[in-house]
C-alpha cells in the first residue's frame, strides 16, 4: 500500500511538471532539477484547488480524480511521443560528470537522507495515525471529504480548534484515497514524507542553480535533513512541512528571478505563495510579505509585480470564497478580548520569551547543536566573494513571518507560554529551509574555502 500511495501521487507530479514547464520554458539541467522537486507539490496544489471547486459544486471527487489522472497521463504520453526525437537525442548526449569531491558530498547527502528516512519510519511505526493535530485537524477533514460525499461540509460543524484551516492537505489525501479506492493511513504518511524529501531536494536544486556548486548545495540539504525535528514533524503528518516547502519554493524564486530576470518566475512565485495560504493560515502572512517584496522589485520592473499577482489569482479564487462562505471564524481572533490591553501587557512578553528559550533548548531532536555549528561555520567561513542577490528579500520575509507569529502569541486566547511550547518547533521549521537558502547565498562555499585562488569560479564554469 505504501508503494501504491506513492504511485497515486505520480499523475499529480506529472501535472505539476507539465504546467510549470509550460510557464517556465527553460530546459537547462539545473532548472529541470528545480522543476523536478517542485512538480509534485505544485501538482498537488493545483489538484486540490480544482478538487475544491469540484466538491463545492456538489460533484463526486472520485470522478474528478479519474478525469485528472487519465487526462494528465494521456497528455504526457502525447507530449513524449511528439518530442521523442529531441528527448532521445538529449538522453543520448546526457553525461554525468562528477568530481571526487562532488561524489563525496552526494554520499554525505545520501546518508542524511537515509537517517531521515529511518527516523520517519521509526516514528510512523509508533504513531501510524500521526500526532494529535494530524488526526484531529487534518485527516479528520480528509475523512469528511472522502466518506461524506455531498455531506463533506459537516466538517465545519465539528467541535475543536482551528475549524477554518484551508483544505490543501485534506483534499490531497482524500484525492489519493479516491485513486486507491481505499482509505489507508499510508496515503497521508506518503504525502508527508514526499514533501519532506522534496524540501531538501528543492533546497539542493536552488543552491546548485545559484552557486553552481554541488558541495555547497549538498551541505545545505544535509543540514536540513539532519534536523531530527524535520523528520518528526513531517511524519507527524502536520501541514507544517508542506507549508515550509511552499515558503522555500516561493521565496526561492526571488533570488532566482534576480539572477536571471526570467519573467515566468514571478508567476510561479505568486502561485506557490498562494498555495502556502491554501495549506495553512500562516501562509496568509507569507502572501502579504511576498507581495511587499515583489512590489519592491516592481519599482523598477513593473511586469514582475504584475506577474506575481497573476500567479496569485487561482489560489486566491479558492481561498476567499472558502473563508467567506464555508470556514467558521478563526478561534484565535474570535471572542471579546481587548487586544490593545493584551499587546500592552509585559507579563505576556516575558512568558513568551521564557517559554521560547526553554522549549527550544529542550526540543526533541535538538536543532541547537546544528544551529551552533552553522553559526560557527558562518564566522569561520565568512561572506562569499560571489554573492547572489535576494538575501535581503528573504530575510525580510522571514522577519515579517516571525513578527506575525510573535503578535499571535501576545494576543492568543490560550496561555501564551503553552501556545509557544506547543508550536515553536513547527514555527522554526516553517522558516528554517528559507533561512538556510539565505545563509548559503551569503556564505563562502566549501570550494571557495579550499583555495584562495579562483578554484570555485573554475569549478562553477565547468558546471
Amino acid at each position, binding site marked *: 500500500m505504501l508503494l501504491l500511495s506513492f504511485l497515486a501521487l505520480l499523475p499529480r507530479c506529472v501535472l505539476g511538471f507539465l504546467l510549470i514547464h509550460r510557464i517556465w520554458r527553460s530546459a537547462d539541467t539545473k532548472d529541470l532539477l528545480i522543476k523536478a522537486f517542485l512538480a509534485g507539490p505544485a501538482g498537488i496544489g493545483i489538484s486540490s484547488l480544482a478538487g475544491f471547486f469540484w466538491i463545492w459544486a456538489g460533484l463526486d471527487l472520485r470522478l474528478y480524480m479519474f478525469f485528472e489522472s487519465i487526462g494528465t497521463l494521456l497528455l504526457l504520453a502525447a507530449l513524449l511521443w511528439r518530442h521523442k526525437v529531441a528527448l532521445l537525442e538529449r538522453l543520448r548526449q546526457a553525461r554525468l560528470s562528477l568530481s571526487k569531491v562532488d561524489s563525496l558530498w552526494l554520499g*554525505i547527502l545520501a*546518508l*542524511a537522507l537515509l*537517517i*531521515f528516512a*529511518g*527516523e520517519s519510519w*521509526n*516514528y510512523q*511505526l*509508533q*504513531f*501510524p*495515525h500521526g500526532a494529535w493535530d494530524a*488526526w*484531529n485537524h487534518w*485527516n*479528520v477533514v480528509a*475523512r*469528511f471529504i472522502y*466518506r*461524506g*460525499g455531498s*455531506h*463533506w461540509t*459537516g*466538517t465545519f*460543524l*465539528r*467541535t*475543536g480548534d482551528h475549524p477554518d484551516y484551508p483544505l490543501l492537505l485534506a483534499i490531497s489525501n482524500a484525492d489519493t484515497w479516491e485513486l486507491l479506492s481505499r482509505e489507508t493511513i499510508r496515503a497521508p504518511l506518503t504525502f508527508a514524507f514526499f514533501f519532506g524529501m522534496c524540501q531538501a531536494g528543492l533546497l539542493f536544486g536552488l543552491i546548485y542553480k545559484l552557486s553552481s556548486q554541488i*558541495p555547497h548545495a549538498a*551541505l545545505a540539504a*544535509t*543540514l536540513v*535533513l*539532519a*534536523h*531530527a525535528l524535520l*523528520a518528526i514533524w513531517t511524519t507527524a503528518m502536520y501541514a507544517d512541512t508542506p507549508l515550509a516547502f511552499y515558503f522555500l519554493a516561493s521565496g526561492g524564486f526571488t533570488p532566482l528571478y534576480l539572477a536571471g530576470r526570467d519573467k515566468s518566475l514571478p508567476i510561479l512565485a505568486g502561485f506557490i505563495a498562494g498555495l502556502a495560504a491554501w495549506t495553512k493560515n500562516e501562509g496568509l502572512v507569507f502572501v502579504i510579505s511576498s507581495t511587499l517584496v515583489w512590489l519592491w522589485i516592481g519599482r523598477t520592473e513593473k511586469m514582475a509585480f504584475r506577474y506575481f499577482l497573476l500567479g496569485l489569482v487561482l489560489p486566491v479564487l479558492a481561498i476567499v470564497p472558502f473563508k467567506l462562505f464555508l470556514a467558521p471564524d478563526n478561534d484565535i481572533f474570535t471572542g471579546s478580548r481587548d487586544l490593545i490591553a493584551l499587546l500592552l501587557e509585559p507579563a505576556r512578553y516575558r512568558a513568551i520569551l521564557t517559554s521560547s528559550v526553554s522549549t527550544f533548548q529542550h526540543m*526533541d*531532536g*535538538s536543532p541547537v*547543536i*546544528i544551529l551552533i*555549528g*552553522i553559526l*560557527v*561555520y558562518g564566522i*569561520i*567561513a565568512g561572506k562569499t566573494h560571489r554573492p547572489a542577490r535576494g538575501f535581503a528579500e528573504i530575510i525580510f520575509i522571514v522577519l515579517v513571518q516571525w513578527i506575525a507569529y510573535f503578535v499571535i502569541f501576545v494576543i492568543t486566547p490560550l496561555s501564551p507560554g503553552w501556545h509557544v511550547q506547543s508550536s515553536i518547533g513547527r514555527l522554526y521549521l516553517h522558516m528554517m529551509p528559507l533561512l538556510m537558502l539565505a545563509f548559503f547565498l551569503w556564505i563562502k562555499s*566549501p570550494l571557495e*574555502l*579550499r583555495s*584562495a585562488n579562483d578554484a570555485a569560479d573554475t569549478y562553477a564554469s565547468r558546471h
Partner: protein
Amino acid sequence: MRLIKRGFPYLLALVALLASGSHLQHTILFFDPANDMVSGWEEHTKLIRGALPADVYEAGYLEEADLPDSPALHDPAEFFLTQYGIAPVVLVEGFGPEWIIGNFGGASIVSIEPWLKEQIGEYTIQNLGFGIYVIHDIEN
C-alpha cells in the same frame, strides 16, 4: 587557519549526521508502540460506524463524566478520537441528536439506564463492548 576553514564544512556535516544518527538510535531504543492511542480507538469506532444507520450525519456524545455523581473527568482526547473515527458524522456533546454515542467506561449499564430514561424517555441501546453504547432516542 586555512586547514580549519577547508575542513569545517566536512566537520559541520559530520556533527549534523552524528546528531541526527544519535537521535535515531535514541528513538529506536525507546520505541514503544503503546504510545499510539489512535489505532486501538479506531477499532471501537469501526463498531460505532457499523451500528449507526448510513444516513445519520450527526450524533450526540455522552461520557462517564456526564453520569450523575460520577467521579470521572471530561476526557477531550476520547471525544476527538471518536470524532476522527466516525467522520463524516458530526459529533456533538450532549443529548440533542436522535442517535447518541455513550462512552461510559466502567460504569454499570444498570445505573445508566434509569438516568437515560429520565433524560430522553423511550430509547434503544446497543452495547458495543469496551463501555461504548449506541443509543437511539426514539422520541426525538
